C-alpha cells in the first residue's frame, strides 16, 4: 500500500486492536481522523469528533480506564490543550496513546512541519513528577511499527506513549507493510473498571490521593517503572557512525534529510555520521556517551531552535563540542544547508 503518514497512524491503530479514537480536527493531522471515520465503523469501532481537545483527551482517559485501547491525536496547539488530561492519565496509571503531528509554534503558529514540541513532549507536557514514552518515527513504515509498539508499551508500563511526528511525515506518502511489527506478551488489565458483577472488589481509577504519604509511595512506584523503561525500551538507529569525526544527532523527518547530507559529506571525504534517537524519552544516553569516545564533534539538527542540544550535552557529559543547525517556523532544512554546516565544522577541526 502507498499511504500517507496520517493514514498509517490510523490503520496501525486498528491493527493494534484499538477500536476507539477521540479527537478534534487540526491541520496537518486531519487525514487521520478522516481515515478512521471511514474505517472504524467497518471494524465495529468508534471514531468520535469531540467538542474540543480537552474533551477528547478525557474521553481517552475514561475509555482506557475501562481497559479498552483508545487514542487521540492532534497537532501542536491542540496537544497543549490536552496537557491537563495527560497529567491525569499519568496520575491514574492508565495506558494511552497520544499522537502529535507537529506544526510551527508557539501560539497558533503555522501549519507547516516543525519539531518545536520536543521539550514539551520529553520534559513537561503535564504537571507533576512524571515521564512518558516518546517515539519519533522517521519513515512512514516506521509509523506502522511504532504505533503498534506504542499501544503495547502503554499497556505493559501503564503509561501514556506519545508518537511524535511532524507535518511532513504526516502528509508524505510511502509504501508500507503492516506485517512488520514484533509481538509482545501483554499483562492482564486487572485494574480496569469494566464491571465486576459482584465477583471481586470494585476497581477505582483516580489520580487524587488524600494522604501525602500514599501519594509519595505511588509516585515512587511509578518512577521504579520509569527506571525499567529506561533500561529496557531505548530505541535508536545509526548510520556510518563507526569511524565518524562529525556525528549528526537528529530524529524524525530531519534525520532523513541529515542522512542525505551525511552521504554528500562522505563523497567529499568528510567522515560524517548520523545518530538517530527513536525513543526521545527514554533518551539513548548510554549509546551517545559511547559515541562521544570516538567522534570529535556533535551536530544537532532539528526543525526548532535547538531543543535537543542539552540532552546531547548531558548524555555525553560535555566531553565533545555540540553544535546546532536548525530551521524553524515551518521551514524544512535542506540537505545542502546541513552539508554546508558539516563543512564549516570540518574546516574548524583539529
Amino acid at each position, binding site marked *: 500500500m502507498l499511504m500517507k503518514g496520517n493514514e498509517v497512524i490510523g490503520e496501525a491503530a486498528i491493527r493494534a486492536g484499538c477500536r476507539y479514537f477521540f479527537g478534534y480536527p487540526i491541520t496537518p493531522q486531519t487525514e487521520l481522523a478522516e481515515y478512521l471515520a*471511514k474505517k472504524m465503523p467497518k471494524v465495529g469501532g468508534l471514531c468520535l469528533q469531540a467538542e474540543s481537545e480537552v474533551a477528547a483527551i478525557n474521553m481517552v482517559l475514561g475509555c482506557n480506564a475501562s481497559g479498552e485501547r483508545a487514542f487521540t491525536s492532534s497537532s501542536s496547539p491542540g496537544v497543549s490543550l490536552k496537557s491537563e488530561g495527560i497529567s491525569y492519565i499519568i496520575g491514574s496509571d492508565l495506558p494511552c496513546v497520544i499522537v502529535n503531528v507537529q506544526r510551527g509554534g508557539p501560539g497558533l503558529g503555522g501549519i507547516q512541519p516543525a519539531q518545536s514540541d520536543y521539550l514539551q513532549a520529553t520534559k513537561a507536557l503535564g504537571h507533576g513528577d512524571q515521564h512518558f514514552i516518546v517515539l519519533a518515527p522517521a519513515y512512514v513504515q516506521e509509523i506502522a511499527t511504532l504505533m503498534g509498539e506504542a499501544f503495547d508499551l502503554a499497556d505493559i508500563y501503564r503509561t501514556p506513549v506519545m508518537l511524535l511526528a511532524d507535518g511532513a511525515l504526516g502528509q508524505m506518502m510511502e509504501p508500507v507493510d503492516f506485517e512488520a511489527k514484533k509481538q509482545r506478551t501483554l499483562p492482564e488489565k486487572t485494574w480496569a473498571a469494566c464491571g465486576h458483577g459482584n465477583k471481586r472488589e470494585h476497581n477505582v481509577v483516580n489520580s487524587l490521593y488524600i494522604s501525602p504519604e500514599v501519594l509519595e509511595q505511588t509516585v515512587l512506584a511509578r518512577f521504579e517503572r520509569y527506571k525499567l523503561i529506561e533500561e529496557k525500551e531505548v530505541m535508536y538507529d545509526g548510520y556510518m557512525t563507526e569511524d565518524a569525526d562529525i556525528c549528526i544527532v537528529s530524529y524524525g523527518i530531519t534525520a532523513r534529510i541529515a542522512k542525505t547530507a551525511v552521504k554528500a559529506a562522505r563523497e567529499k571525504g568528510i567522515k560524517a555520521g548520523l545518530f538517530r534517537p527513536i525513543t526521545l524519552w527514554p533518551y539513548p544516553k548510554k549509546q551517545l556517551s559511547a559515541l562521544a569516545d570516538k567522534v570529535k564533534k556533535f551536530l544537532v539538527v532539528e526543525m526548532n531552535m535547538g531543543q535537543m542540544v542539552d540532552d546531547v550535552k548531558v548524555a555525553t557529559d560535555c566531553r565533545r563540542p555540540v553544535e546546532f543547525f536548525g530551521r524553524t517556523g515551518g521551514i524544512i532544512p535542506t540537505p545542502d544547508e546541513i552539508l554546508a554546516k558539516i563543512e564549516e565544522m570540518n574546516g574548524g577541526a583539529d
Partner: protein
Amino acid sequence: MLLEKIKNRLVIVCGHYGAGKTNVAVNLAKAAAAAGRRVCIADLDIVNPYFRTADNREELEAVGVRCIIPQFANTNVDIPSIPAEFQSVFQTDEMCIVDVGGDDGAVALSVYRDGFIECGYDMLYVFNACRPLTSEAEEAVESIRAIEAMSSLTVSGLVNNSNLGAETTSETVNRGLKVCLAAAKAAGKPVLASSVFRNVAGRIEGDVFLMDNATKKLF
C-alpha cells in the same frame, strides 16, 4: 498517449486523496506545452496543505505554462481560497488543466459548474490501486460517484496512476490497470491511459503516459 484523447480545452484532474492528481496534472501541462499548446494550470486544491502544484511553479513557468496558484498556497494561512484569476480559464483559448483537491476537494468545482458545462470539459479521474480506500474496483466507483455528486460534473475517463512511489514496478502498474478497468466498466467509463514514471522498467499494458515525478523532494 493521453493528450490526444482529450477533446476539450478545459481538463479537470480529480481523484481520491493521494492518487497522484498533481503529478498527472503537472506532467499533462508540460506535455501539452511541449506539443506547442498554450497552457495554463490552475491549482484548485482547497484541502491539501502541502505537496501541491505550487511546488512546481518554477519548472512550469520555465516552459511557458501559466500558473494560477492560490495566494495562500504553502503559507500558514489554513483557509480554502481560490484566486479571482481562476475565472480567466473560462475566457482564454488556452488549454487549462485544473488540479482539484482529493475527495471532498471536488466541491470547489461545483461553484464553476455552469462555466465548465458552457465551455466543455474533460474530467479525468486519477486512480491508484495501491491507495487505501480505493484499492478495490467497487471503492473506486463509489469515489467516482461521490466526486460527481459533489462537483455536479461528469467524469469522462479514468487514468490508471497505480504506483508505489519509488518502489513502482511494471507489475504494480499492470496489476492496478486490471482493477482500474473493472472500476471503469462498472462506472460505464473508458480507461484513457496508464500514467507511469519514466524510470519504471518493463512492459506496460495498454496506452501509456510517461511522467517525471513532480512531487517535492525533501531529502
